[in-house]
């Protein structure tokens, strides 16, 4: 079937009418975080309750993609007035479901389920008032949390596929001009100008060209691409079709890691739906343009997120990167011109076509336009998924949106850019976040991971953690990455065990320099970042570990001893009760004492003590 604009509009009209038939629409976040906090039980429970009350025809309950505020999940948003309930069903699911029913039937707002501000004085009703959302500018995530990702008609009814219609009436070069002028840069980490890449691929010789969406997100703690593919797969698909038309390609591939089963099934369903509605396949919108998309599942190797390794993997070879002296836009998959972009980059495209390049270019900083999705995790109060304009400061992200540091501890560093990114210290909190500023600080944008660390994070241990990840995920093809990163890990591990030697820091710096200059792909070239950035900003911590055998954060077990200050201990018994190995003795209201021989140095006593009586030596 060849779909027309009129048909898209009639689907929208039909859908709007159908929605008007419901007295209320309830949107339950079924993103990764909320599902693990029990969102599906809330969904089933509410559906059942509505049937019992005879309300199942007048109230629509739907599962949506990630709303972002994962820390307070499961999130439920009710009605047009958008009442946001948090942590629904966490304490008592029956109580919370009957509370939801009350709001549905007589608009009673249940105070205890509303989001509460940091100062505990104010409760917020609507997401647009909550600071976590108010500071965001959700463009690629605009429909996450609104639509049911599995229903193509919902996407169409929210304006979906109109950008494709518009694009197919434009000349391919004009589309590339728009993308170029919008200032869109690759969201996967490199930040390469998207328009330039498209133009090179269009100009490359070859009858058959490919476009690829990279959904092989593998950074620890990152779930931006996952949420996008799960929450709004059609946004990615529409962007790819437009890109295919602009570049002169009729075949797209979406490469997703198989550990994202929901993303895989949603994408497959979306592709099937798009084919059924004539939005993929032959002669789309009667334009004469054909386009098809295949989903390719990756086996989980981190390096397959690197463009050339990903292409080798699609070719059926082992996922090893190759030299890019001849660019993949000229010789990519099966030596054919291939244009690869991250899923988030593709998802920006329909918005640029719909609203114009001027609009997109008006957001952000001079060289980084638009917004960026980050997964904000670690020691921050509001962990979750955020989309913010480029140029927002780290402080705004961490303190305004993120609500500050858990337990109001002291901020120490924020790690951006995934495992091979770097750690940025407090001195740079006012820095506007964009591609270039992060690189200047020795970190990078990467795909948008942001891990917040506090005074209880040891920066040497942090470097060790990321190095370990990179040792395991190095593909092993080239010598510096395979052998060099593991030797860096060995040195840092030795330092954490109190076996650091004079000269270790210089050795690390020299080895890191050589590895970053000589590795084959981006993974190896950036692998030294965690070491270099922690040495750069936290050199004292390394020196204390090596020369004085001390870990100031109290993390490296070989270097610390927990003890209790007799003048501060009130004998409250809290540490004694929480100690997992029962190595604390002392009666109520008497000074407690830690048996160092049996202590496993887990730090629980330190964390639970309300009188700062437990110290780390």
């Amino acid at each position: 079937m060849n779909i027309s604009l009129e048909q898209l509009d009639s689907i929208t009209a039909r859908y709007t009418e159908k929605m008007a038939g419901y007295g209320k629409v309830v949107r339950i976040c079924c993103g990764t975080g909320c599902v693990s906090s029990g969102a599906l039980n809330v969904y089933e429970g509410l559906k059942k309750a509505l049937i019992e009350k005879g309300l199942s025809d007048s109230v629509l309950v739907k599962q949506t993609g990630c709303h972002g505020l994962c820390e307070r999940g499961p999130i439920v948003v009710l009605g047009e007035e958008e009442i946001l309930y948090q942590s629904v069903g966490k304490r008592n699911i029956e109580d919370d479901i009957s509370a939801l029913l009350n709001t549905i039937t007589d608009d009673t707002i249940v105070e205890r389920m509303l989001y509460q501000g940091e100062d505990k004085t104010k409760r917020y009703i609507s997401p647009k008032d909550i600071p976590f959302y108010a500071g965001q500018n959700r463009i690629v995530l605009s429909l996450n949390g609104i639509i049911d990702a599995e229903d193509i008609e919902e996407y169409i009814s929210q304006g979906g596929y109109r950008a494709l219609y518009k694009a197919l009436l434009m000349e391919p070069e004009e589309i590339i001009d728009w993308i170029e002028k919008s200032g869109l840069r690759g969201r996967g980490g490199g930040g390469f100008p998207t328009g330039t890449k498209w133009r090179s691929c269009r100009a490359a010789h070859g009858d058959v060209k490919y476009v690829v969406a990279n959904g092989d997100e593998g950074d620890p703690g990152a779930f931006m691409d996952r949420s996008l593919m799960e929450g709004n797969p059609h946004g990615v698909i529409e962007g790819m079709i437009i890109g295919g038309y602009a570049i002169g390609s009729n075949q797209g591939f979406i490469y997703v890691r198989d550990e994202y089963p929901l993303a895989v099934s949603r994408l497959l369903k979306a592709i099937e739906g798009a084919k059924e509605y004539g939005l993929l396949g032959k002669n789309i919108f009667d334009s004469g343009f054909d386009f098809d998309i295949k989903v390719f599942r990756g086996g989980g190797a981190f390096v397959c997120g690197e463009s050339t390794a990903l292409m080798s993997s699609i070719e059926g070879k082992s996922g090893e990167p190759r030299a890019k002296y001849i660019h993949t836009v000229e010789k990519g998959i099966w030596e054919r011109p291939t244009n690869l972009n991250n899923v988030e980059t593709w998802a920006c495209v329909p918005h640029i076509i719909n609203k114009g390049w001027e609009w997109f270019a008006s957001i952000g900083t001079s060289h980084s336009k638009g917004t960026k999705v980050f997964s904000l995790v670690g020691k921050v109060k509001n962990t979750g998924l955020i989309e913010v304009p480029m140029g927002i400061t780290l402080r705004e992200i961490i303190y305004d949106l993120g609500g500050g540091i858990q337990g109001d501890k002291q901020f120490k560093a924020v790690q951006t850019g995934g495992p091979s990114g770097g750690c940025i210290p407090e001195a740079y909190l006012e820095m506007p976040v964009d591609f270039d500023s992060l690189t200047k600080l020795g970190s990078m944008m990467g795909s948008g991971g942001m891990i917040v660390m506090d005074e209880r994070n040891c920066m040497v241990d942090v470097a060790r953690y990321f190095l370990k990840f990179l040792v395991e995920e190095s593909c092993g093809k080239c010598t510096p990455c395979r052998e060099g990163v593991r030797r860096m890990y060995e040195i840092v591990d030795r330092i954490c065990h109190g076996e650091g030697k004079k000269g270790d820091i210089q050795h690390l710096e020299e080895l890191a320099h050589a590895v970053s200059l000589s590795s084959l792909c981006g993974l190896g070239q950036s692998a030294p970042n965690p070491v270099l950035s922690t040495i750069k900003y936290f050199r004292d911590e390394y020196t204390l570990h090596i020369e004085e055998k001390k870990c100031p954060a109290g993390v490296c077990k070989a270097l610390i001893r927990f003890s209790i200050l007799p003048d501060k201990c009130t004998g409250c018994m809290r540490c004694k009760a929480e100690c997992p190995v029962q190595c604390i003795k002392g009666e109520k209201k008497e000074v407690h004492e830690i048996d160092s021989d049996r202590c496993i140095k887990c730090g629980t006593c330190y964390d639970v003590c309300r009188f700062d009586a437990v110290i780390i030596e």
Partner: protein
Amino acid sequence: MKEFKINGRKVQAEKGETVLEVARREGFDIPTLCYHEKLGSDGRCRLCIVEVQRGNRRRFVTSCLYPVENGIDVYTDSKDVILIRKTILELLLARCPSSDIVQHLASEYGVHDVRYTKDVDKGKCILCGQCIRTCESIVGVSALCMSGKGPAKKVTTPFDEPSEVCIGCGACAVVCPTGHIYIEDRGGYRTIWRKKFELARCPQCNRLHAPIEQLEFISKKTGVDIDELLICQNCK
């Protein structure tokens, strides 16, 4: 025709040549371990890295893969290039302390000892991949592959089992630059990659000369009768 400079000296090259080919022809010394002039390279060992300046941009590239361009300045012995070579050689020496060629190259660059714990489980394999490429593109059987990743990566037969397609020709052992691949001819049999091959006896001089499977493979490929192939090279 392309014109560019190596260490300040003007050189000429054909389009499509690599910097390494031109440099070696012109007498510049660039060490390599994974490059083979018949098999080419896929940039694994990184020893041949040189510094290339193109306009204002300086970068480090593997000369075995980098195609020549007009007007570039190539530096084969800059400070960072030497640091890279020394680092790689120290890392390889820690991995394969018993490899003669690695020892030799390392000492040439003043690397006499390593600051790391020496590996005892890697043999002499530097993962250059020449054996795999020979087996695939010269012999045409693809009996070998890399398995695993990171430091655990190794060259092996699929699933570490005796390969069904291996013909026991030993080309992998011949091409191996470090002598890591074990091949043994004893008692009328050849053992390589955990597989035992019966050796053919020349009907004229009675000498054991090649695995029967290899001769059968050649016979099938070329159409030459197996009886003819059983006669050894000396007696032909």
